[in-house]
């Protein structure tokens, strides 16, 4: 699965993107966040304030219950502040 991180989330995780093998039991974005948080402290710290994180699957904003599959691009970022 292709994962992307932006803004302070990318800084904490210290990566802007990566490809990870995700266990097949991980079916939703919410479960993916829990899984990542369990494997490394950096993810845990980045995803700590869960309410402050938004996610997109294949460049579309979704909620935590969104289903994901191996071929998806999942992105994690803070609320947008462009413009």
């Amino acid at each position, binding site marked *: 699965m292709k994962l992307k991180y932006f803004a302070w989330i990318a800084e904490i995780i210290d990566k802007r993107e990566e490809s990870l093998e995700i266990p097949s039991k991980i079916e939703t974005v919410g479960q993916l966040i829990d899984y990542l948080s369990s494997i490394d402290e950096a993810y845990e710290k980045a995803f700590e304030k869960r309410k402050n994180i938004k996610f*997109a699957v294949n460049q579309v904003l979704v909620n935590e219950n969104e289903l994901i599959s191996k071929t998806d691009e999942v*992105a994690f970022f803070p*609320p*947008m*502040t*462009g*413009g």
Partner: protein
Amino acid sequence: MHINITKDDFDLTREMNRFNHNKYNYGAISIFIGKVRPENGLKKMQIDCYPEMAQKEIKNVAEIARSRWTLDKIRIIHRYGLLKPNDNIVLLIIGSRHRADCMSANEFIMDFLKSLAPFWKKEIYSDKEIWIEQNESDLKKLQQWENI
């Protein structure tokens, strides 16, 4: 409709020429330019961006604007990367027959772009770096549009 997500600076004159290309001949044009506001001691502004998603989201918002108002042309440029105080960030040019349409659409697109387009600003001072947080008033502005 032209949407450009880019690190490069834009030039209003050149963009207006492109906008007016193909005999643009409606009555009203509304333009908005957003720049890096020089705050006390601000050295740089880092704008992080998810370009593929930004392109999609801005297109969506522009399509919604098109469905709400009678618009002719829309041209949007949003920069990202490392900028200095007073550098250009965003340019929005909208043409329509009647002024109310392009003015409202301009405000609407900027309000949505601010909260839906995947850009994140970090202010860089000599002694600290601060990621800007989404502010309440921007979210309130969004809600107002839903009641119209």
